[in-house]
């Protein structure tokens, strides 16, 4: 479709605002609202710009209501941008041309396209007809994907009899039957147990390596992002606050490292406090947050002064990092607006 250099997804100043009705509480409010509508414009996404190259797997992070789904809907042509523009594979998504729709897919963890009462195979045949997939191609793709998803013996069971994890895998199979080049995944592991999450992650990783498809995914499970996405976009209150490598995100915002010390015998609490902020002490194990500039000297001091039997340095959990990204941009906003 396009070579590795040119972006496959391009968002420039992408903005979406919604007009929502404002109503005072109670009957009086309802009556006033009936005669005179007051509306308010709400910005869901504000001037978001980024590019994604073919084959990239990009994580899209942000709190609930941050604007992730709105952005995905603009990129898939389900919402028309209020301002700015976006292009996917060279197409304008909101025109929803047939070629564009053949090239993309959208999987939503909270909605399903499988026919509830029928076996998965019926949805697959229907999608094959809609996307114009030939019989030979259909057989080859279903065999391959079902094997990868370990779903081969479940395809003839009614969807309502499948477990949640199996259903999500079947959703993926139905969504990938036409061999889309760009995958938009909105919370694909929502509500799944750990095993099923791992299976979906593993599948997406293999699928990306095998087909070179581009993936933009949102998830609340940080393990999804750390396992799959070398690059992350962080969106907060509709604005993009970070675009870069996952490690860079950790460096920029997760500045403090976590020192885990196992002690041979108990020590004074004061000795630990001297090293940095003590996060926890459980039995003989202490966790201490340390600024990276002081890491070397702190480790040196700990080894010299304390009865250390084991010492490891960790990155903080990514939930905490994203929380800090959001916290920082919130503080910056408040400083600007003086609130």
């Amino acid at each position, binding site marked *: 479709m396009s070579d590795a250099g040119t972006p496959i997804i391009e968002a420039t100043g992408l903005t979406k605002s919604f007009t929502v009705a404002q109503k005072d509480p109670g009957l009086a409010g309802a009556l006033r609202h009936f005669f005179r509508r007051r509306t308010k414009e709400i910005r869901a996404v504000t001037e978001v710009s980024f590019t994604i190259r073919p084959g990239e797997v990009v994580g899209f992070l942000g709190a609930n209501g941050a604007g992730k789904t709105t952005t995905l809907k603009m990129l898939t042509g389900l919402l028309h941008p209020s301002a700015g523009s976006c292009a996917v594979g060279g197409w304008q998504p909101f025109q929803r041309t047939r070629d564009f*729709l053949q090239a993309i897919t959208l999987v939503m963890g909270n909605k399903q396209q499988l026919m509830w009462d029928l076996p998965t195979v019926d949805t697959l045949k229907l999608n094959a007809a809609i996307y114009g997939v030939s019989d030979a191609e259909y057989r080859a793709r279903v065999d391959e994907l079902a094997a990868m998803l370990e779903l081969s013996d479940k395809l003839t069971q009614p969807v309502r009899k499948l477990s949640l994890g199996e259903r999500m895998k079947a959703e993926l199979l139905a969504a990938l039957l036409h061999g889309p080049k760009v995958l938009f995944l909105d919370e694909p592991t929502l509500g799944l147990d750990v095993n099923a999450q791992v299976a979906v992650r593993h599948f997406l990783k293999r699928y990306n390596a095998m087909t070179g498809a581009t993936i933009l995914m949102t998830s609340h499970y940080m393990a999804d992002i750390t396992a799959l996405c070398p690059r992350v976009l962080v969106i907060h209150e509709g604005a993009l606050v970070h675009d870069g490598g996952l490690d860079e995100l950790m460096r920029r915002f997760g500045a403090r490292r976590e020192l885990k010390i196992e002690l041979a015998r108990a020590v004074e609490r004061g000795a630990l406090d001297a090293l940095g902020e003590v996060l926890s002490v459980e039995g003989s194990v202490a966790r201490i947050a340390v600024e990276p500039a002081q890491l070397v000297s702190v480790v040196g001091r700990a080894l010299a002064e304390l009865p250390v039997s084991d010492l490891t340095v960790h990155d903080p959990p990514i939930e905490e990092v994203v929380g800090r990204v959001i916290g920082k941009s919130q503080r910056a906003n408040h400083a600007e607006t003086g609130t």
Partner: protein
Amino acid sequence: MARLLRILRCYWSTSLQAELEYRSNFVVQAIGSSLALAGSIFALSLFYRGAGFPGWTFEEGLVVQGLYSAFAGAIACLLSPNLSRIVQHVEAGTLDFVLLKPIDAQLTLSLRVLSPWGVPDLLFGIGVIAYGAWHAPAREGSVMLAIVAAGFGAIIIYGMWFLVATTSVWFTKIYNATEVLRGLLDAGRFPMAAYPAAYRFVFTFVVPVAFLTTVPAELLLGRGQPAMLLGAAGLALLLLVASRAFWRFALKSYTGASG
């Protein structure tokens, strides 16, 4: 075209399969359907025991009744189940999946589901038309004309129905509106001559049920005028274009393209 037929076959076979999945439901529905049918025949016989309608013999009235039953069956097979599905799509947010498929969304929303429950009504209606036309009798060579008129009638009812269905994009709960539509269509059970002039005007120009049953019946019986067919054709075209335009407008509103 071949692709469309393949899709339509998949749509209809899967929707019939889904209905047949619940076997006990199938039995209950089949019983309900045949009871309704028996009631319909009984009501019909009672009604025509009286004076009947001015200018319409019993057999001629049967043709109108048959057309009404056939339309009711077709509506139960296609229009009603697809309409309730549009409402579901809007409520559950799965309209997105329809819009993301490389196939015309109006086509999918109009023809996605085929329900078997209208088939008895449809067959009964056709039987009654045939009986009435044989005994009335119908004028020779007017059968084709009547079929064309009934075809326009089908497009007219589809257009009205889809216009109403499209409003579900804004007002999710539109079951009531369709009940009103269904009630008005009941007026098509009898020849237009059964109604006072003011009603006739409404049923011809406002809610054009006259074009569903009375017009094809009159053409079949050889007393229709070409102007009627022309009017039906014009109205069918108008409603088809209007339903298309309104759907596009609704879609713009759904995706926020108008704002």
